[in-house]
Protein backbone atom coordinates (compact mmCIF):
# COMPACT_ATOMS: atom_id res chain seq x y z
CA UNK A 1 0.00 0.00 0.00
CA UNK A 2 2.61 2.46 1.11
CA UNK A 3 4.81 1.54 -1.82
CA UNK A 4 1.96 2.13 -4.17
CA UNK A 5 1.31 5.51 -2.59
CA UNK A 6 4.96 6.39 -2.97
CA UNK A 7 5.03 5.37 -6.59
CA UNK A 8 1.93 7.26 -7.50
CA UNK A 9 2.66 10.34 -5.45
CA UNK A 10 6.28 10.72 -6.55
CA UNK A 11 5.73 11.74 -10.14
CA UNK A 12 2.66 13.75 -9.23
CA UNK A 13 4.61 16.04 -6.98
CA UNK A 14 7.30 16.33 -9.57
CA UNK A 15 4.80 17.26 -12.25
CA UNK A 16 3.23 19.94 -10.11
CA UNK A 17 6.62 21.40 -9.43
CA UNK A 18 7.53 21.33 -13.10
CA UNK A 19 4.28 23.04 -14.02
CA UNK A 20 4.81 25.80 -11.50
CA UNK A 21 8.25 26.32 -12.85
CA UNK A 22 7.18 26.78 -16.45
CA UNK A 23 4.25 28.88 -15.32
CA UNK A 24 6.36 31.45 -13.54
CA UNK A 25 8.85 31.42 -16.39
CA UNK A 26 6.09 31.98 -18.91
CA UNK A 27 4.68 34.78 -16.81
CA UNK A 28 7.97 36.62 -16.86
CA UNK A 29 8.17 36.17 -20.61
CA UNK A 30 4.68 37.45 -21.25
CA UNK A 31 5.28 40.49 -19.04
CA UNK A 32 8.41 41.34 -20.99
CA UNK A 33 6.56 40.85 -24.27
CA UNK A 34 3.70 43.07 -23.11
CA UNK A 35 6.16 45.79 -22.09
CA UNK A 36 7.93 45.63 -25.44
CA UNK A 37 4.64 45.88 -27.36
CA UNK A 38 3.56 48.82 -25.21
CA UNK A 39 6.89 50.53 -25.78
CA UNK A 40 6.45 50.13 -29.55
CA UNK A 41 3.00 51.71 -29.36
CA UNK A 42 4.33 54.59 -27.30
CA UNK A 43 7.37 55.05 -29.55
CA UNK A 44 5.93 57.95 -31.61
CA UNK A 45 5.17 59.85 -28.41
CA UNK A 46 8.59 59.16 -26.90
CA UNK A 47 10.20 60.27 -30.14
CA UNK A 48 8.35 63.59 -29.90
CA UNK A 49 9.50 64.07 -26.32
CA UNK A 50 13.12 63.43 -27.33
CA UNK A 51 12.92 65.87 -30.25
CA UNK A 52 11.24 68.52 -28.15
CA UNK A 53 14.46 69.13 -26.22
CA UNK A 54 16.63 69.59 -29.30
CA UNK A 55 17.51 72.61 -31.35
CA UNK A 56 16.14 72.84 -34.87
CA UNK A 57 19.49 72.10 -36.46
CA UNK A 58 19.90 68.99 -34.28
CA UNK A 59 16.41 67.81 -35.21
CA UNK A 60 17.38 67.96 -38.87
CA UNK A 61 21.02 66.94 -38.72
CA UNK A 62 21.45 64.46 -35.93
CA UNK A 63 18.08 63.49 -34.53
CA UNK A 64 19.27 60.33 -32.78
CA UNK A 65 21.79 61.88 -30.46
CA UNK A 66 20.61 62.51 -26.95
CA UNK A 67 20.35 66.24 -26.30
CA UNK A 68 23.57 67.31 -24.60
CA UNK A 69 21.84 69.78 -22.40
CA UNK A 70 18.14 69.71 -21.74
CA UNK A 71 16.93 72.93 -23.29
CA UNK A 72 13.48 74.31 -22.86
CA UNK A 73 13.93 76.79 -25.68
CA UNK A 74 11.36 75.04 -27.86
CA UNK A 75 8.81 75.17 -25.07
CA UNK A 76 9.48 78.82 -24.42
CA UNK A 77 8.96 79.64 -28.11
CA UNK A 78 5.85 77.48 -28.24
CA UNK A 79 4.32 79.37 -25.34
CA UNK A 80 5.23 82.67 -26.93
CA UNK A 81 3.79 81.86 -30.36
CA UNK A 82 0.64 80.18 -29.17
CA UNK A 83 -2.09 81.78 -27.26
CA UNK A 84 -2.66 78.64 -25.21
CA UNK A 85 -4.77 80.48 -22.66
CA UNK A 86 -7.22 81.58 -25.34
CA UNK A 87 -7.44 78.11 -26.92
CA UNK A 88 -8.12 76.47 -23.58
CA UNK A 89 -10.58 79.17 -22.56
CA UNK A 90 -12.66 78.86 -25.74
CA UNK A 91 -12.71 75.07 -25.61
CA UNK A 92 -13.54 75.12 -21.91
CA UNK A 93 -16.42 77.59 -22.25
CA UNK A 94 -17.90 75.68 -25.19
CA UNK A 95 -17.55 72.36 -23.36
CA UNK A 96 -19.11 73.72 -20.16
CA UNK A 97 -22.16 75.25 -21.86
CA UNK A 98 -22.65 72.25 -24.16
CA UNK A 99 -22.42 69.64 -21.46
CA UNK A 100 -24.68 71.34 -18.93
CA UNK A 101 -27.42 71.81 -21.52
CA UNK A 102 -27.06 68.42 -23.20
CA UNK A 103 -27.15 66.49 -19.94
CA UNK A 104 -30.22 68.40 -18.81
CA UNK A 105 -32.23 67.95 -21.97
CA UNK A 106 -31.21 64.37 -22.76
CA UNK A 107 -31.82 63.36 -19.15
CA UNK A 108 -35.35 64.72 -19.44
CA UNK A 109 -36.10 63.12 -22.78
CA UNK A 110 -34.54 59.79 -21.81
CA UNK A 111 -36.57 59.73 -18.62
CA UNK A 112 -39.73 60.32 -20.59
CA UNK A 113 -38.82 57.53 -23.02
CA UNK A 114 -37.76 55.04 -20.38
CA UNK A 115 -40.39 55.61 -17.71
CA UNK A 116 -43.44 57.59 -18.78
CA UNK A 117 -46.54 55.97 -20.19
CA UNK A 118 -47.28 57.05 -23.73
CA UNK A 119 -50.73 56.74 -25.15
CA UNK A 120 -49.25 54.78 -28.02
CA UNK A 121 -46.42 52.39 -27.26
CA UNK A 122 -45.49 52.44 -30.93
CA UNK A 123 -44.95 56.19 -31.00
CA UNK A 124 -42.58 55.82 -28.06
CA UNK A 125 -40.57 53.16 -29.83
CA UNK A 126 -40.40 55.28 -32.98
CA UNK A 127 -39.15 58.34 -31.10
CA UNK A 128 -36.50 56.24 -29.33
CA UNK A 129 -35.37 54.70 -32.61
CA UNK A 130 -35.25 58.15 -34.24
CA UNK A 131 -33.05 59.51 -31.46
CA UNK A 132 -30.70 56.50 -31.65
CA UNK A 133 -30.39 56.72 -35.43
CA UNK A 134 -27.84 59.51 -35.02
CA UNK A 135 -25.24 56.92 -33.92
CA UNK A 136 -24.99 55.90 -37.57
CA UNK A 137 -24.90 59.42 -39.03
CA UNK A 138 -21.36 60.69 -39.57
CA UNK A 139 -20.64 64.34 -38.75
CA UNK A 140 -19.22 65.18 -42.19
CA UNK A 141 -22.60 64.84 -43.89
CA UNK A 142 -23.94 67.50 -41.51
CA UNK A 143 -21.11 70.00 -42.03
CA UNK A 144 -22.43 72.04 -44.92
CA UNK A 145 -26.11 72.18 -43.85
CA UNK A 146 -25.06 73.12 -40.32
CA UNK A 147 -22.82 75.81 -41.79
CA UNK A 148 -25.88 77.14 -43.63
CA UNK A 149 -27.98 76.99 -40.47
CA UNK A 150 -25.31 78.94 -38.60
CA UNK A 151 -25.50 81.73 -41.16
CA UNK A 152 -29.30 81.55 -41.22
CA UNK A 153 -29.53 81.98 -37.44
CA UNK A 154 -26.92 84.76 -37.54
CA UNK A 155 -24.64 83.05 -35.03
CA UNK A 156 -21.45 82.76 -37.11
CA UNK A 157 -18.29 82.89 -35.01
CA UNK A 158 -20.07 82.73 -31.69
CA UNK A 159 -19.87 80.05 -29.02
CA UNK A 160 -23.43 79.09 -29.92
CA UNK A 161 -22.39 78.13 -33.44
CA UNK A 162 -20.41 75.20 -32.01
CA UNK A 163 -22.46 74.56 -28.88
CA UNK A 164 -25.64 73.64 -30.77
CA UNK A 165 -24.09 71.06 -33.13
CA UNK A 166 -22.14 69.56 -30.23
CA UNK A 167 -25.35 69.18 -28.25
CA UNK A 168 -27.08 67.70 -31.29
CA UNK A 169 -24.38 65.12 -32.01
CA UNK A 170 -24.35 63.97 -28.38
CA UNK A 171 -28.07 63.27 -28.20
CA UNK A 172 -27.98 59.73 -29.62
CA UNK A 173 -25.15 58.54 -27.40
CA UNK A 174 -26.65 60.07 -24.25
CA UNK A 175 -30.06 58.63 -25.04
CA UNK A 176 -28.51 55.19 -25.48
CA UNK A 177 -26.75 55.31 -22.12
CA UNK A 178 -29.50 57.01 -20.10
CA UNK A 179 -32.42 54.91 -21.32
CA UNK A 180 -30.32 51.76 -21.05
CA UNK A 181 -29.49 52.48 -17.43
CA UNK A 182 -33.01 53.55 -16.45
CA UNK A 183 -34.59 50.44 -17.97
CA UNK A 184 -32.35 48.25 -15.86
CA UNK A 185 -33.18 50.12 -12.68
CA UNK A 186 -36.28 49.25 -10.59
CA UNK A 187 -38.97 51.96 -10.52
CA UNK A 188 -40.16 51.27 -6.97
CA UNK A 189 -38.18 54.13 -5.45
CA UNK A 190 -39.70 56.61 -7.87
CA UNK A 191 -43.20 55.21 -7.37
CA UNK A 192 -42.83 55.56 -3.61
CA UNK A 193 -41.71 59.15 -4.06
CA UNK A 194 -44.68 59.93 -6.28
CA UNK A 195 -47.09 58.38 -3.79
CA UNK A 196 -45.54 60.59 -1.11
CA UNK A 197 -46.59 63.56 -3.23
CA UNK A 198 -43.43 64.25 -5.16
CA UNK A 199 -43.90 66.33 -8.32
CA UNK A 200 -42.17 65.69 -11.63
CA UNK A 201 -39.47 68.32 -11.16
CA UNK A 202 -38.55 67.27 -7.63
CA UNK A 203 -38.66 63.63 -8.69
CA UNK A 204 -36.14 64.23 -11.43
CA UNK A 205 -33.85 66.47 -9.41
CA UNK A 206 -33.89 64.79 -6.02
CA UNK A 207 -34.67 61.14 -6.76
CA UNK A 208 -33.73 60.05 -10.28
CA UNK A 209 -30.70 62.25 -10.97
CA UNK A 210 -28.74 60.98 -7.96
CA UNK A 211 -29.53 57.39 -8.97
CA UNK A 212 -28.33 57.93 -12.51
CA UNK A 213 -25.13 59.70 -11.41
CA UNK A 214 -22.65 56.99 -12.54
CA UNK A 215 -23.97 57.21 -16.11
CA UNK A 216 -23.95 61.01 -15.95
CA UNK A 217 -20.26 60.78 -15.05
CA UNK A 218 -19.54 58.57 -18.07
CA UNK A 219 -21.54 60.84 -20.37
CA UNK A 220 -19.85 63.92 -18.94
CA UNK A 221 -16.31 62.69 -19.35
CA UNK A 222 -16.92 61.13 -22.73
CA UNK A 223 -18.34 64.40 -24.04
CA UNK A 224 -15.55 66.49 -22.56
CA UNK A 225 -13.15 64.37 -24.56
CA UNK A 226 -15.30 64.63 -27.69
CA UNK A 227 -15.40 68.44 -27.57
CA UNK A 228 -11.72 68.64 -26.68
CA UNK A 229 -10.82 66.65 -29.81
CA UNK A 230 -13.53 67.79 -32.20
CA UNK A 231 -12.18 69.25 -35.41
CA UNK A 232 -14.52 69.05 -38.47
CA UNK A 233 -17.23 71.35 -37.06
CA UNK A 234 -14.68 73.75 -35.59
CA UNK A 235 -12.78 74.18 -38.84
CA UNK A 236 -16.01 74.64 -40.81
CA UNK A 237 -17.82 77.03 -38.50
CA UNK A 238 -15.10 79.16 -36.92
CA UNK A 239 -13.16 81.70 -38.94
CA UNK A 240 -12.50 84.29 -36.25
CA UNK A 241 -9.15 83.89 -34.54
CA UNK A 242 -10.54 84.99 -31.18
CA UNK A 243 -12.91 82.00 -31.23
CA UNK A 244 -10.29 79.34 -32.10
CA UNK A 245 -10.58 76.06 -30.20
CA UNK A 246 -7.74 73.69 -29.30
CA UNK A 247 -8.03 71.34 -32.29
CA UNK A 248 -8.37 74.26 -34.63
CA UNK A 249 -5.33 75.92 -33.09
CA UNK A 250 -3.29 72.74 -33.55
CA UNK A 251 -4.23 72.57 -37.23
CA UNK A 252 -2.63 75.99 -37.69
CA UNK A 253 0.68 75.02 -36.05
CA UNK A 254 2.32 74.10 -39.31
CA UNK A 255 1.63 77.52 -40.77
CA UNK A 256 2.33 79.46 -37.63
CA UNK A 257 5.69 77.96 -36.80
CA UNK A 258 6.67 77.68 -40.46
CA UNK A 259 9.85 75.58 -40.31
CA UNK A 260 10.35 75.84 -36.55
CA UNK A 261 9.93 72.10 -36.00
CA UNK A 262 11.10 72.31 -32.41
CA UNK A 263 8.34 74.80 -31.71
CA UNK A 264 5.66 72.60 -33.30
CA UNK A 265 6.84 69.55 -31.37
CA UNK A 266 6.98 71.36 -28.06
CA UNK A 267 3.53 72.84 -28.67
CA UNK A 268 2.11 69.38 -29.39
CA UNK A 269 3.64 67.96 -26.23
CA UNK A 270 2.14 70.84 -24.25
CA UNK A 271 -1.27 69.81 -25.58
CA UNK A 272 -0.82 66.04 -25.26
CA UNK A 273 0.20 66.12 -21.59
CA UNK A 274 -3.10 67.54 -20.27
CA UNK A 275 -4.99 65.00 -22.41
CA UNK A 276 -2.99 62.10 -21.03
CA UNK A 277 -3.39 63.41 -17.48
CA UNK A 278 -7.14 63.70 -18.02
CA UNK A 279 -7.18 60.16 -19.39
CA UNK A 280 -5.20 58.70 -16.48
CA UNK A 281 -7.54 60.42 -14.05
CA UNK A 282 -10.80 59.34 -15.68
CA UNK A 283 -9.64 56.14 -17.39
CA UNK A 284 -12.47 54.00 -16.15
CA UNK A 285 -15.21 56.33 -17.40
CA UNK A 286 -13.54 56.96 -20.75
CA UNK A 287 -12.98 53.30 -21.53
CA UNK A 288 -16.49 52.50 -20.28
CA UNK A 289 -18.02 55.22 -22.45
CA UNK A 290 -16.12 54.31 -25.58
CA UNK A 291 -16.77 50.60 -25.31
CA UNK A 292 -20.42 51.15 -24.36
CA UNK A 293 -20.88 53.28 -27.46
CA UNK A 294 -19.17 50.59 -29.52
CA UNK A 295 -20.76 47.50 -28.04
CA UNK A 296 -24.32 48.73 -27.75
CA UNK A 297 -24.30 50.95 -30.81
Amino acid at each position, binding site marked *: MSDLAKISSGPVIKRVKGKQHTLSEG*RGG*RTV*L*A*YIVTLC*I*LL*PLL*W*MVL*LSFKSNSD*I*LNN*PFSFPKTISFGNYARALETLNLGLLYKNTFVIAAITIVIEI*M*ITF*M*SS*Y*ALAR*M*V*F*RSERLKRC*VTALLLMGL*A*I*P*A*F*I*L*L*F*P*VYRLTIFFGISNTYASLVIPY*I*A*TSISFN*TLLFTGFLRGFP*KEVEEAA*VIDGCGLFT*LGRAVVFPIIMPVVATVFIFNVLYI*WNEFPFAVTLISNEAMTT*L*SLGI*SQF*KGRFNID*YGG*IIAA*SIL*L*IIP*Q*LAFFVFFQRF*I*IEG*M*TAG*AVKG
Partner: protein
Amino acid sequence: MIWLSKRRYILGMLLPTLLVYLVYIILPVIVSFYYSFTTYTGIGAAEFVGLKNYVTLWQDSLFWISLKNTFIILVVSIMFLLPGAFLLALLLNLKIKSGNAIKALNFAPSIIAPILVGLIWVFILDPQMGLINVFAKSLGLNQLALQWIGGKTLTPYSIGVVFTWQMIGFLATVFLAGLKMIPRDVYESSSIDGAGKLQQLLSITIPMLNETVKINVVLIITGVFKIFETVLLLTNGGPNHLSEVLVTYMYNVTFTSGEYGYGMSIATVTFLLTMVFSLVYMGLSKKNIEE
Protein backbone atom coordinates in the same frame (compact mmCIF):
# COMPACT_ATOMS: atom_id res chain seq x y z
CA MET B 1 -45.63 56.35 -13.45
CA ILE B 2 -48.99 56.77 -15.10
CA TRP B 3 -49.81 59.58 -12.65
CA LEU B 4 -47.17 61.86 -14.03
CA SER B 5 -47.61 60.87 -17.65
CA LYS B 6 -49.82 63.73 -18.70
CA ARG B 7 -49.45 64.54 -22.35
CA ARG B 8 -48.09 68.03 -21.76
CA TYR B 9 -45.50 66.69 -19.30
CA ILE B 10 -44.23 64.16 -21.81
CA LEU B 11 -44.17 66.77 -24.53
CA GLY B 12 -42.34 69.23 -22.32
CA MET B 13 -39.71 66.63 -21.41
CA LEU B 14 -39.12 65.58 -25.01
CA LEU B 15 -39.39 68.94 -26.72
CA PRO B 16 -35.92 70.47 -26.18
CA THR B 17 -34.09 67.31 -27.28
CA LEU B 18 -36.37 66.69 -30.24
CA LEU B 19 -36.12 70.29 -31.39
CA VAL B 20 -32.31 70.36 -31.41
CA TYR B 21 -32.14 66.89 -32.93
CA LEU B 22 -34.62 67.57 -35.72
CA VAL B 23 -33.11 70.92 -36.69
CA TYR B 24 -29.43 69.99 -36.39
CA ILE B 25 -29.35 66.28 -37.33
CA ILE B 26 -32.42 65.15 -39.28
CA LEU B 27 -32.96 68.35 -41.27
CA PRO B 28 -29.26 68.56 -42.32
CA VAL B 29 -29.29 64.95 -43.56
CA ILE B 30 -32.35 65.73 -45.68
CA VAL B 31 -30.86 69.03 -46.86
CA SER B 32 -27.58 67.33 -47.83
CA PHE B 33 -29.50 64.80 -49.80
CA TYR B 34 -31.57 67.49 -51.48
CA TYR B 35 -28.56 69.70 -52.35
CA SER B 36 -26.88 66.70 -53.97
CA PHE B 37 -29.48 67.00 -56.75
CA THR B 38 -28.79 70.69 -57.34
CA THR B 39 -26.02 72.91 -58.61
CA TYR B 40 -25.83 75.13 -55.57
CA THR B 41 -22.87 77.46 -55.34
CA GLY B 42 -23.96 79.65 -52.47
CA ILE B 43 -25.27 82.45 -54.65
CA GLY B 44 -28.89 82.63 -55.74
CA ALA B 45 -31.28 79.74 -55.58
CA ALA B 46 -30.34 76.10 -55.87
CA GLU B 47 -31.14 74.78 -59.31
CA PHE B 48 -32.52 71.28 -59.42
CA VAL B 49 -30.58 69.18 -61.92
CA GLY B 50 -31.65 65.64 -61.09
CA LEU B 51 -28.89 63.05 -61.22
CA LYS B 52 -26.39 65.28 -63.00
CA ASN B 53 -24.00 65.48 -60.01
CA TYR B 54 -23.98 61.71 -59.70
CA VAL B 55 -23.18 61.32 -63.39
CA THR B 56 -20.32 63.81 -63.01
CA LEU B 57 -19.17 61.86 -59.98
CA TRP B 58 -19.08 58.64 -61.96
CA GLN B 59 -16.80 60.29 -64.53
CA ASP B 60 -14.65 62.18 -62.03
CA SER B 61 -11.22 60.54 -61.85
CA LEU B 62 -10.46 62.33 -58.55
CA PHE B 63 -13.51 60.71 -56.99
CA TRP B 64 -12.23 57.29 -58.02
CA ILE B 65 -8.78 58.09 -56.64
CA SER B 66 -10.35 59.12 -53.31
CA LEU B 67 -12.44 55.97 -53.29
CA LYS B 68 -9.43 53.80 -54.09
CA ASN B 69 -7.37 55.44 -51.32
CA THR B 70 -10.17 55.01 -48.79
CA PHE B 71 -10.43 51.40 -49.86
CA ILE B 72 -6.67 50.83 -49.46
CA ILE B 73 -6.85 52.20 -45.90
CA LEU B 74 -9.78 49.89 -45.23
CA VAL B 75 -7.93 46.82 -46.51
CA VAL B 76 -4.76 47.68 -44.59
CA SER B 77 -6.84 48.13 -41.43
CA ILE B 78 -8.73 44.86 -41.82
CA MET B 79 -5.49 43.00 -42.54
CA PHE B 80 -3.33 44.47 -39.77
CA LEU B 81 -5.46 46.35 -37.28
CA LEU B 82 -8.02 43.60 -36.70
CA PRO B 83 -5.60 40.70 -36.07
CA GLY B 84 -3.22 43.09 -34.30
CA ALA B 85 -5.91 44.22 -31.87
CA PHE B 86 -6.91 40.59 -31.31
CA LEU B 87 -3.35 39.50 -30.51
CA LEU B 88 -2.89 42.51 -28.26
CA ALA B 89 -6.09 41.58 -26.42
CA LEU B 90 -4.88 38.00 -25.96
CA LEU B 91 -1.63 39.33 -24.54
CA LEU B 92 -3.33 41.82 -22.22
CA ASN B 93 -5.75 39.13 -21.09
CA LEU B 94 -2.86 37.19 -19.52
CA LYS B 95 -1.72 37.94 -16.02
CA ILE B 96 0.91 40.66 -16.42
CA LYS B 97 2.71 42.70 -13.82
CA SER B 98 0.94 46.08 -13.50
CA GLY B 99 -1.44 44.93 -16.23
CA ASN B 100 -3.89 47.80 -15.74
CA ALA B 101 -1.27 50.44 -16.39
CA ILE B 102 -0.19 48.55 -19.52
CA LYS B 103 -3.79 48.39 -20.74
CA ALA B 104 -4.20 52.13 -20.18
CA LEU B 105 -0.95 52.97 -22.00
CA ASN B 106 -2.03 50.94 -25.02
CA PHE B 107 -5.39 52.69 -25.01
CA ALA B 108 -3.83 56.17 -24.82
CA PRO B 109 -3.41 56.86 -28.58
CA SER B 110 -7.17 56.63 -29.10
CA ILE B 111 -7.89 59.54 -26.75
CA ILE B 112 -5.34 61.91 -28.28
CA ALA B 113 -7.02 64.46 -30.56
CA PRO B 114 -6.91 63.10 -34.15
CA ILE B 115 -5.43 66.38 -35.29
CA LEU B 116 -2.52 65.89 -32.87
CA VAL B 117 -2.12 62.32 -34.07
CA GLY B 118 -1.65 63.69 -37.58
CA LEU B 119 0.93 66.18 -36.35
CA ILE B 120 2.87 63.51 -34.43
CA TRP B 121 3.05 61.25 -37.46
CA VAL B 122 4.42 64.03 -39.64
CA PHE B 123 7.59 63.61 -37.61
CA ILE B 124 7.59 59.84 -38.16
CA LEU B 125 6.66 59.64 -41.85
CA ASP B 126 8.14 62.78 -43.37
CA PRO B 127 10.55 61.70 -46.13
CA GLN B 128 13.25 64.22 -45.14
CA MET B 129 13.16 64.43 -41.36
CA GLY B 130 10.81 61.64 -40.27
CA LEU B 131 11.94 58.95 -37.85
CA ILE B 132 11.60 56.06 -40.31
CA ASN B 133 13.76 57.50 -43.05
CA VAL B 134 16.33 59.00 -40.71
CA PHE B 135 16.64 55.58 -39.07
CA ALA B 136 16.87 53.74 -42.39
CA LYS B 137 19.52 56.15 -43.66
CA SER B 138 21.56 55.89 -40.47
CA LEU B 139 21.69 52.13 -41.04
CA GLY B 140 22.81 52.73 -44.62
CA LEU B 141 19.54 51.34 -45.98
CA ASN B 142 18.87 54.21 -48.33
CA GLN B 143 16.66 52.09 -50.57
CA LEU B 144 14.23 51.74 -47.65
CA ALA B 145 13.94 55.50 -47.20
CA LEU B 146 10.78 55.85 -49.28
CA GLN B 147 8.32 58.66 -49.77
CA TRP B 148 5.92 57.47 -47.08
CA ILE B 149 3.85 60.60 -47.44
CA GLY B 150 3.64 63.18 -50.18
CA GLY B 151 4.62 60.76 -52.91
CA LYS B 152 2.38 59.28 -55.55
CA THR B 153 1.53 55.88 -54.10
CA LEU B 154 2.36 55.22 -50.47
CA THR B 155 0.29 57.80 -48.58
CA PRO B 156 -2.89 55.73 -48.14
CA TYR B 157 -0.89 52.80 -46.78
CA SER B 158 0.81 55.13 -44.32
CA ILE B 159 -2.56 56.54 -43.29
CA GLY B 160 -3.68 52.95 -42.70
CA VAL B 161 -0.73 52.48 -40.35
CA VAL B 162 -1.55 55.70 -38.51
CA PHE B 163 -5.17 54.60 -38.18
CA THR B 164 -3.96 51.25 -36.86
CA TRP B 165 -1.84 53.00 -34.25
CA GLN B 166 -4.79 55.18 -33.23
CA MET B 167 -7.32 52.38 -32.91
CA ILE B 168 -5.42 49.28 -31.80
CA GLY B 169 -5.71 49.84 -28.05
CA PHE B 170 -9.38 50.73 -28.29
CA LEU B 171 -10.27 47.70 -30.42
CA ALA B 172 -8.16 45.48 -28.14
CA THR B 173 -10.25 46.74 -25.21
CA VAL B 174 -13.44 45.78 -27.06
CA PHE B 175 -11.89 42.34 -27.72
CA LEU B 176 -10.95 42.09 -24.04
CA ALA B 177 -14.56 42.74 -23.06
CA GLY B 178 -15.52 39.90 -25.42
CA LEU B 179 -12.89 37.56 -23.98
CA LYS B 180 -14.19 38.20 -20.47
CA MET B 181 -17.64 37.02 -21.56
CA ILE B 182 -16.48 33.53 -22.58
CA PRO B 183 -17.28 31.28 -19.62
CA ARG B 184 -14.24 29.73 -17.95
CA ASP B 185 -15.63 26.22 -17.66
CA VAL B 186 -15.56 25.87 -21.46
CA TYR B 187 -11.77 26.11 -21.29
CA GLU B 188 -11.56 23.89 -18.22
CA SER B 189 -13.65 21.07 -19.64
CA SER B 190 -11.87 21.24 -23.00
CA SER B 191 -8.44 21.02 -21.38
CA ILE B 192 -9.65 17.97 -19.42
CA ASP B 193 -10.59 16.50 -22.79
CA GLY B 194 -7.00 17.13 -23.85
CA ALA B 195 -7.31 20.25 -25.99
CA GLY B 196 -4.09 22.23 -26.31
CA LYS B 197 -3.80 26.01 -26.09
CA LEU B 198 -3.75 26.49 -29.85
CA GLN B 199 -6.71 24.19 -30.34
CA GLN B 200 -8.63 26.11 -27.67
CA LEU B 201 -7.81 29.37 -29.40
CA LEU B 202 -8.99 28.13 -32.78
CA SER B 203 -12.08 26.20 -31.75
CA ILE B 204 -13.29 28.08 -28.67
CA THR B 205 -11.94 31.64 -28.42
CA ILE B 206 -12.23 32.73 -32.04
CA PRO B 207 -15.70 31.26 -32.75
CA MET B 208 -17.05 32.60 -29.46
CA LEU B 209 -15.73 36.07 -30.22
CA ASN B 210 -17.77 36.23 -33.42
CA GLU B 211 -20.00 39.06 -32.17
CA THR B 212 -17.02 41.07 -30.98
CA VAL B 213 -15.23 40.63 -34.31
CA LYS B 214 -18.35 41.91 -36.00
CA ILE B 215 -18.48 45.01 -33.78
CA ASN B 216 -14.82 45.72 -34.43
CA VAL B 217 -15.10 45.33 -38.19
CA VAL B 218 -18.03 47.73 -38.24
CA LEU B 219 -16.02 50.14 -36.05
CA ILE B 220 -13.14 49.91 -38.52
CA ILE B 221 -15.41 50.49 -41.52
CA THR B 222 -17.16 53.51 -40.02
CA GLY B 223 -13.83 54.78 -38.64
CA VAL B 224 -12.00 54.55 -41.96
CA PHE B 225 -14.75 56.41 -43.80
CA LYS B 226 -14.43 59.21 -41.22
CA ILE B 227 -10.65 59.70 -41.46
CA PHE B 228 -10.13 63.40 -42.06
CA GLU B 229 -7.66 65.10 -39.75
CA THR B 230 -4.69 62.80 -40.38
CA VAL B 231 -4.92 63.18 -44.16
CA LEU B 232 -5.35 66.92 -43.78
CA LEU B 233 -2.18 67.26 -41.74
CA LEU B 234 0.00 64.67 -43.46
CA THR B 235 -0.59 65.69 -47.09
CA ASN B 236 -3.76 67.79 -47.32
CA GLY B 237 -4.72 65.45 -50.16
CA GLY B 238 -1.67 66.33 -52.22
CA PRO B 239 0.27 66.15 -54.37
CA ASN B 240 -2.33 66.97 -56.96
CA HIS B 241 -5.18 65.33 -55.00
CA LEU B 242 -3.45 61.94 -55.30
CA SER B 243 -3.76 61.13 -51.60
CA GLU B 244 -7.29 62.44 -51.17
CA VAL B 245 -9.81 60.24 -49.32
CA LEU B 246 -13.58 60.54 -49.75
CA VAL B 247 -14.14 62.86 -46.80
CA THR B 248 -11.27 65.22 -47.60
CA TYR B 249 -12.28 65.33 -51.25
CA MET B 250 -15.84 66.12 -50.25
CA TYR B 251 -14.55 68.83 -47.91
CA ASN B 252 -12.33 70.41 -50.55
CA VAL B 253 -15.01 70.35 -53.24
CA THR B 254 -17.58 71.81 -50.85
CA PHE B 255 -15.67 74.39 -48.88
CA THR B 256 -12.58 75.16 -50.95
CA SER B 257 -14.13 75.12 -54.43
CA GLY B 258 -17.58 76.14 -53.24
CA GLU B 259 -19.34 73.50 -55.35
CA TYR B 260 -21.88 72.76 -52.64
CA GLY B 261 -24.24 70.68 -54.74
CA TYR B 262 -21.49 68.46 -56.06
CA GLY B 263 -19.87 68.22 -52.63
CA MET B 264 -23.11 66.99 -51.13
CA SER B 265 -23.38 64.26 -53.76
CA ILE B 266 -19.94 63.01 -52.64
CA ALA B 267 -21.08 63.21 -48.99
CA THR B 268 -24.23 61.27 -49.79
CA VAL B 269 -22.35 58.56 -51.69
CA THR B 270 -19.76 58.27 -48.89
CA PHE B 271 -22.50 57.93 -46.28
CA LEU B 272 -24.33 55.31 -48.33
CA LEU B 273 -21.09 53.39 -48.95
CA THR B 274 -20.39 53.24 -45.21
CA MET B 275 -23.88 51.92 -44.56
CA VAL B 276 -23.72 49.41 -47.41
CA PHE B 277 -20.29 48.12 -46.34
CA SER B 278 -21.39 47.71 -42.73
CA LEU B 279 -24.71 46.08 -43.60
CA VAL B 280 -23.25 43.74 -46.23
CA TYR B 281 -20.55 42.68 -43.80
CA MET B 282 -23.06 42.04 -41.03
CA GLY B 283 -25.30 40.15 -43.44
CA LEU B 284 -22.43 37.99 -44.69
CA SER B 285 -21.16 37.11 -41.24
CA LYS B 286 -24.68 36.24 -40.15
CA LYS B 287 -24.95 33.82 -43.05
CA ASN B 288 -21.66 32.23 -42.03
CA ILE B 289 -22.95 31.54 -38.54
CA GLU B 290 -26.13 29.99 -39.85
CA GLU B 291 -24.18 27.67 -42.12
